[in-house]
């Protein structure tokens, strides 16, 4: 029971900004405990999702932020469109040209345009330092929107793989950006 409760809490808190998760989880736990009602996973989940919805909505509060988000979305869309065009140029029959398996695999991956474009778009969305701190959650909104666009373009089965790859690339790009942002600046420069 305790384990199930812990898992539900963790899942619910994933939708919240990382720095606020611990305090909000404790506040909700305290509120449920103070009300005297028995713990209900669904209640905790509902409350956490309600709070998360507010944090996600905060990304779009200012017109400047909305413009930046739209720009990043357009950039991601452009990559989803441009990369397949680029990979389709001059790569036809390339797998037959190369004999060794490694080269053939590289060419095969490169020519899987739906995957390369998804990875490129995801990395762009995660990595670009265009958005202010309070709009960081919108990167995931953009990722989901691009994933759905990819699914619409490539069909359900191929599109799901591309969408998952895109979201993974958003995460990877975000990790890289955070690492750069949190690293101390060079004292010489």
């Amino acid at each position, binding site marked *: 029971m305790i384990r199930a409760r812990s898992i539900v809490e963790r899942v619910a808190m994933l939708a919240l*900004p990382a720095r*606020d998760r*611990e*305090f*909000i*989880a*404790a*506040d*909700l*736990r*305290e*509120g449920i*405990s*103070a009300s005297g009602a028995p713990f209900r996973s669904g209640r905790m989940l509902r*409350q956490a999702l*309600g*709070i*998360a*919805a*507010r*944090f996600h*909505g*905060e990304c779009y509060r200012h017109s400047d932020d909305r413009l930046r988000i739209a720009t990043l979305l357009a950039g991601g869309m452009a990559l989803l469109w441009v990369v397949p065009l680029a990979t389709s140029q001059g790569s036809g029959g390339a797998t037959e040209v190369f004999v060794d398996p490694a080269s053939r695999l590289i060419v095969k991956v490169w020519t899987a345009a739906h995957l390369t474009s998804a990875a490129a778009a995801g990395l762009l969305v995660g990595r670009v330092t265009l958005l202010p*701190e*309070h709009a960081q959650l919108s990167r995931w909104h953009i990722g989901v929107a691009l994933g759905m666009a990819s699914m619409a373009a490539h069909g359900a089965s191929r599109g799901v793989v591309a969408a998952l790859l895109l979201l993974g690339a958003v995460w990877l790009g975000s990790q890289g950006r955070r690492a750069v942002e949190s690293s101390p600046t060079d004292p010489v420069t």
Partner: protein
Amino acid sequence: MDPQGLGELEQLALLAVLRLGDTAYAVSVREEIQARTGRDVSRGAIYVTLDRMERKGYVRSKLGSPTPERGGKAKRLFTVAAPGQRALRAALQGTQAMLEGLPPELAWKPPR
């Protein structure tokens, strides 16, 4: 200072933090607003508002003591910073100026 001024909920939250003193955290701020104004403000709105005001430098937060009913986790306690006090004063002066000269039936009376 924010050129757009304080929003209504930001004003209420700042006033609640001032009233609560050392015990101001998201839950108590929400309860204070609810008790004094009768408004049922959502939890999410309070968290987002306090978060936004901290980014603007209007409030500061620090960790409180962990308690068993919170699963051993600390509270995030808030205090109003000097820019927050200035912004609140400006907002309240603006409201006061707008109230002046209005018909008596619109004049505000404190609740008893």
